[in-house]
């Protein structure tokens, strides 16, 4: 108990120091940063779009003191036009720190806010999960590093799909071993997750090739100069892993539990119980993916509808990729159930013979 409180106090102290550091880290940046000291409204405009919707634009004169580079301490004034809706502009307030490029405001300095979020996340994980919470943070850090390293190889010219497959093996092994320890249950889960994701990969590949990407629109990827096909399949593939792991470990530990309680249990009974457990988890898991993915289509929807575009148009262009992500992920969740059951029965029974 004492150890827990001590560690918490240490974490809070580190957090406070890192917040102070990040708030004052302007010297790390090459771009000019100003701290806004005064904002004055100078002009208001109203613009009307083709549906008759009125939008208010306000031009402001923003005064600020430069906080870094060799001009530190000087005061400068810039003009900034903000809109009521803030679709692409921001509403700045006094004491905000903003980047300046060619006498224009380029954007807010957001590192401080990201730091706050990370601290809330880590401390709440620790408070609830204790030692296990810290483990999951470590697992997140390792996986993100592997993900980043994989992309570095891609930039050097390697095939992204092959990288993703290799990465997926590392991801599953590391995450499951960290979460559940090294034992037979996790071995089965790792094997099932990898098999399932490969099977889903093949299904997705066939469907994509057969339909020649019809009904799928890459608007949101249009900024890339590399061929979209190279990225889309690996992306869908990575999205399967997390949910599939979750289902695989649940099923594999329940089957091992059932066998240890009743070594004489038949394969048929095992399959039936696995299906029962599978039913319970598949519903909530597919909902997790559904809301995590689909909600990101909201801002574009608002823009599209307020511009008079039809819903059908939106469904087939802007959100189609999000829907595919959800569908592929859910197919992964459901396929994990029979595959894990089959592999667990095979491996557990073999050992007990």
């Amino acid at each position: 108990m004492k150890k827990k409180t001590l560690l918490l106090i240490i974490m809070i102290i580190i957090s406070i120091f890192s917040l102070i550091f990040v708030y004052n880290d302007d010297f790390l940046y090459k771009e000019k940063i100003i701290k806004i000291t005064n904002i004055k409204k100078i002009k208001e405009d109203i613009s009307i779009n083709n549906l008759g919707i009125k939008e208010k634009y306000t031009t402001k004169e923003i005064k600020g003191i430069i906080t870094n580079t060799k001009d530190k301490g000087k005061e400068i004034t810039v003009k900034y036009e903000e809109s009521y809706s803030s679709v692409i502009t921001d509403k700045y307030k006094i004491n905000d720190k903003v980047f300046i490029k060619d006498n224009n405001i380029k954007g807010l300095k957001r590192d401080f806010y990201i730091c706050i979020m990370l601290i809330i996340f880590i401390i709440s994980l620790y408070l609830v999960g204790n030692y296990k919470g810290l483990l999951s943070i470590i697992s997140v850090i390792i996986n993100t590093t592997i993900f980043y390293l994989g992309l570095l190889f891609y930039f050097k010219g390697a095939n992204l799909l092959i990288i993703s497959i290799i990465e997926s093996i590392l991801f599953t092994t590391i995450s499951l071993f960290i979460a559940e320890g090294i034992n037979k249950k996790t071995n089965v889960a790792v094997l099932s997750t990898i098999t399932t994701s490969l099977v889903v990969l093949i299904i997705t590949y066939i469907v994509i090739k057969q339909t020649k990407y019809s009904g799928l629109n890459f608007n949101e990827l249009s900024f890339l100069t590399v061929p979209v096909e190279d990225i889309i399949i690996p992306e869908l593939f990575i999205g399967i892993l997390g949910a599939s792991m979750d289902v695989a470990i649940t099923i594999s530990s329940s089957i091992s539990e059932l066998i240890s309680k009743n070594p004489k249990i038949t394969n048929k009974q095992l399959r039936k119980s696995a299906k029962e457990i599978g039913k319970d988890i598949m519903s909530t898991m597919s909902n997790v993916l559904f809301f995590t993915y689909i909600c990101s289509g909201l801002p574009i929807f608002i823009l599209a509808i307020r511009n008079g575009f039809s819903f059908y148009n939106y469904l087939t262009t802007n959100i189609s990729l999000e829907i595919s992500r959800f569908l592929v992920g859910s197919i992964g969740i459901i396929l994990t159930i029979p595959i894990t059951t089959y592999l667990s029965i095979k491996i557990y029974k073999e050992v007990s013979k």
Partner: protein
Amino acid sequence: MNLILAIILLILMLYIDKNRGFKLFLGLIFNFIILIILFYLMALGLNPIICALIGCLLISYVILYFVNGENIKTKTAIKSVIVVILILSVLIFIMTNISRIAGFGEEAYEEINMFSYDVNIDFTNITIALILIGLIGVTVDAAIAISSALYEVYTNNKNLSKKELFKSGMNIGKDILCTSMNTLLFAFLSEFMTLVIWYYECNYSFIDIINSKTFASEIIKIMFSAIGCVSVIPITAYITSNTLIKNKKQMEEIA
């Protein structure tokens, strides 16, 4: 293409269980319709935050009552989800306002340049609504996992005290924590891949990336989903153990 994937999904769900699978598929369609109606209401100019709060309630109702059936487990789960959503909505409101992540970053300009930006709807509120809806799935998942596991513990050993029940609820929570974090992480990485490639092509430095609007909003969105999933654990453990003990006392009084 999505149609074919949807048909494959439906067949697989029916294979696992005809009744439940069909209900689940129907539930997903219901939720999709609710979402679209919500999106439309927001586009009409209704307050997005209020829309999102009511929407979250409806969605959790569909997930829990329609798919899992009404019982003591789903009742306590829904109560816990409401408490978490109310607490987090305050935090999300503050965070979205101070970090100015509303609207679109530079990366999306090409996607949205066919639209006029004069829409007269404050996108700060839209972003708050988006984060709220995004975290509902994972929060409901954690809540129902804990309340049903805790119910099992209680039915197997009715002599446990409130404190003991709460403690075992927290232990169950710790077990699901790691895997839930993984589900979120990989969903996030899958969405994030193109963005990283884009940053690389545009020669963004690490410092440029963490200050960009798109990156900040993605990270804040996923962090809130994670925080929702984490904070629902003690709240569900507390509410479920309380309800179970209360029920037991009532039963004893009647007897």
